[in-house]
């Protein structure tokens, strides 16, 4: 019944031009890496062009990431390694674009590659050259805080892990050439040019941190103890200049008082940098919090104008820092930093509530903004793409990832300042656009990976190798890793054990492979972080070493040990030993498992017909796959139906109309209106969803699902909303203006109150869009009626990114901004007929009363809890405390769920703007296509198996199985009829429920056999 629901694709145009199934990704930072990996999974070959000596970008320099305090290197390492080892990603370092010819679908790109003076094919990364190099040069990776050798590798986990000679520093002594056993040194290496043929170009060069020498009043460059936030990241990092100890550059002492100065090189009209850099507030809080974690005695102070913590989980992070972690916030502009020449302390001069003040600090960190990537202006000219006045790529709100030139796309910070998850989202999102452009040549340039034949280990006695990770200082600082290694060596069957700074880095993977061979290992145990993120990486290493990937076990000594027992090193070390012992005990009992593949239904289900859902559906359809789009109401459009204009566009309704039109005309999309999901069965590749439609029940078969169900508007309970008709929400106000029911020309005095239903106990998060919305509506009034008096009562103005401009314009026009404190919110009352708003003005130190004609409430966005709870059960995906869906990883898997084949975008994820929703929907579409573009899907091999000798066919398991994967069959053996349980491998999901139910011990779960679990229990309780 499903089949003929799609109109046949008649008269599909044949492309005349010859398209190329390769893509050039310019930039190897996190956005570039994500895009490259997704492109390959979408069937495209990738050239990754990186200007420096290794990929990784700025994220490789960061210590921790907000709001989870995840270690940056740890979460990024798997992606680095994946990019490094993927056959279909050619990483070209130290290279830039010379010339671009051709057009969308078929570009010819001439690139120039600078000499490395070391042959990366030969270099083993042993580092012997660097250890003996007599010259030193400034270490850019540590932001100039220390020196490196003349022959060096950018950072320990660098990909490619090949050394490079800095010819500016090199004195040509020849030492390294003599020492290098691999003969990799090539003093006569030359510049090369090469021509690449690609179908599309993606620009992801990231950003350049602002250089604060441009602000002499802060003393950067003159005073030793004034550092940039990037330098401070390196100071905090275990691989940094001070090994992760917080020290002052001038004397190496531990500072007692540290100040952060915000908005250095941001929100600065005079400097031509009017925009807000979007990330500095959060990274400053993170640095302050991490500082306290390093040295509890340090007193951090953040000098700021507004705290812009608008992202998912950000506000809670901020409040926690303020209330529980001893971070002090001072709202002001800093006018000057002076040094006390004797102590090298710094005196900060600032103005708070009209009073001039001074305060002394030991160290000052400048929260520098994000500026466009260096040297990209020229390239933009060469490519013929337009930049905005600030030097970032100019994009339209409706196509945030497209440059002004067809076939050239942009993602990440070059599109505008943004944080890691949004860069990752855009990286994926651009892939959807590229897949739409190049869908006819998918898979044409892809090479298949060949693995060495699997070694037969049957009959061998276990030989276990144990690798224990320091994870920088994440484990090393709280667990005595060396001691654990020595202990591991004493365990049964362990023939080898060692520790690594990062077990997950590329060079350690090579090492593990070598050691597997050298020591003839047939089982591997890694003790590091959680298997939920890192198991696949190590399994791949085993595969490459010719071992079955299921001969692997992990001990989680970070999330479940070092991070939760930070104050008791002895106990943490003991626990780490126990966890290693348990893992080794299980490993000894592991046996190889066989993988097999299932067919995929190459069709998507998109739930929610708002902006996010429509964009996701369109992108998947344009990528060449069929889509069911389900909407519960009677029309497409969602919240967009109530948006009439934005700061960027005077006419949202015509944009919406064209979008709906495109959806309706798209032959690959089948829309179900007035429809609700009743039931979901199946799993990735093979979902079966039952819909209730006005025409009755329909069953849809699909391979993936995208949740794009949106959110609700908060309906105010406060400020006399609903009691007085002069009190409106921003959305109602906008609608009335658009429909001519309110004439801005007739408005006298209007007050807007921010954060209504946001940032409070009930809804502790920031709704992100309301500041911009208020600014938009206020601008609209003043444009038509400059005489109107507008007051905006706010807590922090969060017009981040390029939105700052509209905020500034509004201030120019004379709008009055009054900050209120959350403890003293504004009051609304009626005095006679008059509606009066009173608010305590901090600047005046007094309460002001404002009689108003109209009170507009910036009401927030709330999760559709009931709806979400139901869907979360259907698809087995989690919600966060606020009722929004919780993605697989806040930083690096922003649109995925841990449940494979289910993706997320739009307001269902968290509040966001139109352009952000579009990019996120495109990302979800690209991620969904990584599944859809394959015909087969790897099935879970850790499934149930029957020991036929023990099974007596009682059938208990058959009734227990939720997936109908077990059947009792009758077989004839030796002329006797016997009953036996049979497991259908395609249906079994590997929960193990039947095994616990089996009364005769005939059922087993591969990878979790009773034998293996008993071994772990016994090992855990060994004395």
């Amino acid at each position, binding site marked *: 019944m499903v089949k003929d629901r799609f109109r046949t694709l008649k008269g599909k145009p044949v492309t005349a031009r010859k398209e190329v199934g390769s893509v050039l990704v310019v930039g190897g930072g996190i956005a570039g890496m994500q895009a490259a990996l997704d492109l390959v999974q979408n069937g495209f070959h990738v050239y990754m062009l990186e200007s420096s000596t290794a990929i990784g970008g700025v994220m490789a320099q960061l210590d921790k990431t907000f709001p989870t305090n995840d270690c940056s290197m740890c979460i990024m390492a798997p992606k680095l390694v994946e990019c490094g080892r993927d056959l279909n990603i050619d990483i070209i370092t130290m290279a830039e674009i010379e010339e671009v010819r051709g057009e969308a679908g078929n570009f010819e790109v001439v690139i120039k590659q600078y000499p490395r003076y070391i042959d990366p094919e030969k270099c083993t990364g042993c580092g012997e050259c660097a250890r003996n190099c007599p010259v030193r040069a400034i270490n850019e990776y540590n932001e100039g805080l220390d020196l490196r050798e003349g022959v060096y590798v950018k950072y320990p986990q660098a990909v490619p892990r090949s050394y490079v000679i800095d010819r500016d520093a090199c004195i040509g002594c020849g030492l390294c050439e003599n020492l290098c056993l691999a003969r990799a040194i090539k003093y006569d290496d030359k510049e090369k040019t090469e021509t690449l043929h690609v179908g599309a170009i993606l620009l992801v060069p990231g950003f350049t941190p602002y250089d604060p020498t441009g602000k002499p009043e802060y003393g950067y460059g003159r005073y030793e103890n004034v550092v940039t936030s990037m330098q401070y990241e390196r100071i905090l990092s275990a691989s940094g200049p001070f090994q992760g100890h917080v020290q002052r550059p001038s004397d190496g002492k531990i500072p007692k008082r540290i100040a952060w100065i915000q908005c250095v090189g941001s929100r600065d009209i005079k400097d031509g940098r009017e925009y807000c850099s979007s990330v500095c507030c959060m990274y400053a809080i993170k640095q302050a919090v991490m500082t306290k974690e390093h040295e509890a005695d340090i007193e951090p102070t953040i000098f700021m104008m507004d705290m812009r913590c608008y992202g998912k989980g950000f506000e809670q992070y901020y409040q926690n820092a303020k209330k529980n972690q001893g971070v002090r916030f001072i709202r002001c502009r800093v006018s000057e930093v002076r040094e006390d020449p004797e102590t090298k302390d710094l005196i900060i001069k600032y103005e708070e509530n009209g009073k001039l003040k001074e305060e002394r600090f030991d160290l000052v960190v400048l929260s520098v903004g994000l500026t466009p990537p260096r040297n990209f202006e020229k390239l933009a000219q060469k490519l013929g793409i337009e930049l905005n006045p600030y030097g970032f790529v100019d994009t339209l709100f409706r196509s945030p990832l497209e440059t002004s030139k067809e076939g050239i796309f942009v993602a990440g910070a070059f599109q505008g300042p943004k944080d890691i998850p949004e860069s990752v989202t855009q990286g994926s999102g651009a892939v959807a656009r590229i897949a739409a452009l190049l869908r006819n040549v998918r898979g044409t340039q892809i090479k298949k990976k060949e693995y060495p034949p699997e070694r037969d280990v049957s009959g061998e006695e276990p030989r276990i190798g144990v690798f224990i990770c320091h994870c920088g200082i994440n484990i090393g600082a709280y667990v005595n890793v060396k001691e654990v290694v020595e202990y591991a060596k004493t365990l049964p069957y362990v023939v080898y054990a060692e520790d690594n700074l990062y077990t997950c880095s590329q060079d350690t993977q090579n090492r593990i492979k070598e050691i597997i061979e050298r020591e003839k290992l047939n089982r591997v145990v890694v003790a590091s972080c959680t298997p939920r993120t890192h198991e696949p990486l190590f399994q791949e290493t085993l595969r490459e070493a010719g071992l079955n990937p299921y001969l692997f076990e992990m001990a989680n000594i970070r999330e479940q040990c070092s991070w*939760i027992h930070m104050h008791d090193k002895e106990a943490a070390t003991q626990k780490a030993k126990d966890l290693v012992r348990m893992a080794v005990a299980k490993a000894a009992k592991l046996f190889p498992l066989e993988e097999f593949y299932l067919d995929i239904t190459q069709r998507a289900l998109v739930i929610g017909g708002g902006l996010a859902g429509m964009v996701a559906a369109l992108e998947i359809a344009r990528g060449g796959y069929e889509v069911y789009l389900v909407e519960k109401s009677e029309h497409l459009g969602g919240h967009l139906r109530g948006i009439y204009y934005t700061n960027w566009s005077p006419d949202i309704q015509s944009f919406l109309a064209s979008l709906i039109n495109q959806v309706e005309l798209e032959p690959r999309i089948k829309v179900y209106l007035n429809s609700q999901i009743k039931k979901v069965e199946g799993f990735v590749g093979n979902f079966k969803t039952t819909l209730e439609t006005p025409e009755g029940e329909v069953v849809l078969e699909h391979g993936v699902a995208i949740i794009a169900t949106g959110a609700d508007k908060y309906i105010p309970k406060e400020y006399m909303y609903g009691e007085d008709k002069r009190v409106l929400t921003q959305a109602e106000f906008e609608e009335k203006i658009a429909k001519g029911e309110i004439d801005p020309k007739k408005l006298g005095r209007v007050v807007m109150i921010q954060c209504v239903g946001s940032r409070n106990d009930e809804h502790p998060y920031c709704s992100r869009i309301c500041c911009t919305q208020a600014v938009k509506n206020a601008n609209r009034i003043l444009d038509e009626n400059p005489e109107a008096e507008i007051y905006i009562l706010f807590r922090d103005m969060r017009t981040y990114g390029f939105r700052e401009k509209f905020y500034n314009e509004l201030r120019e026009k004379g709008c009055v901004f009054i900050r209120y404190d959350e403890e003293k919110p504004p009051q609304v009352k009626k005095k006679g007929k008059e509606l009066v708003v009173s608010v305590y003005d901090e600047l005046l130190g007094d309460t002001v009363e404002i009689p108003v004609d109209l009170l507009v409430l910036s009401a927030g966005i709330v999760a559709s809890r009931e709806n979400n709870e139901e869907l979360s059960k259907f698809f087995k995906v989690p919600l966060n405390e606020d009722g929004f869906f919780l993605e697989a990883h806040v930083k690096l898997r922003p649109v995925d769920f841990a449940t494979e084949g289910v993706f997320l975008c739009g307001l269902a994820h968290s509040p966001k703007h139109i352009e952000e929703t579009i990019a996120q929907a495109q990302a979800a579409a690209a991620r969904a296509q990584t599944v859809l573009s394959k015909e087969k899907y790897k099935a879970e091999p850790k499934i149930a198996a029957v020991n036929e000798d023990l099974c007596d066919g009682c059938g208990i398991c058959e009734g227990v199985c939720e997936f109908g994967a077990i059947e009792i069959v009758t077989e004839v053996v030796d002329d006797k009829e016997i009953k036996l349980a049979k497991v259908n491998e395609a249906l079994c999901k590997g929960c193990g429920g039947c095994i616990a139910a089996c009364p005769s011990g005939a059922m087993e*779960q591969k990878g979790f056999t009773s034998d293996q679990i008993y071994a772990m229990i016994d090992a*855990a309780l060994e004395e």
Partner: protein
Amino acid sequence: MEWRPKIIVFTCNWCSYAGADLAGVSRLQMPPDFRIIRVMCSARVDPEFVLRAFQRGADGVMVAGCHPGDCHYIGGNYRTRRRMALLKLLLQQFGLNPKRFRLEWISAGEGQKFAEVIREFVDEIKKLGPSPYRQIKKEVRKHG
């Protein structure tokens, strides 16, 4: 030296193990007296696993899975609930205080809850003191 309990915690991969990870990511500090054994679903936890742990001297055992209705494998944890209820009765007959055994529902988003449950359970076990089976185990060892 102060006596430290030994607690075994079985968690399902999808909710409770992830919740434990989240507790770690959030740096929620907990007493170090528990060891997690990961299984794919709480339904994989054979009551015999729990008995074995007690036999080997565990002072407490916890089984943690997704909230009812949230199991990654549809109804796995309903079975767990039934099995563990029976097990609890059995434990009493074996002379174990049923408080030494717990069944908890902890989702992937509940790092906080994971930490709280662990803290509470460790406290509880500390109050109960070493498992009687530990004694038996020791004596067996002593007398051969």
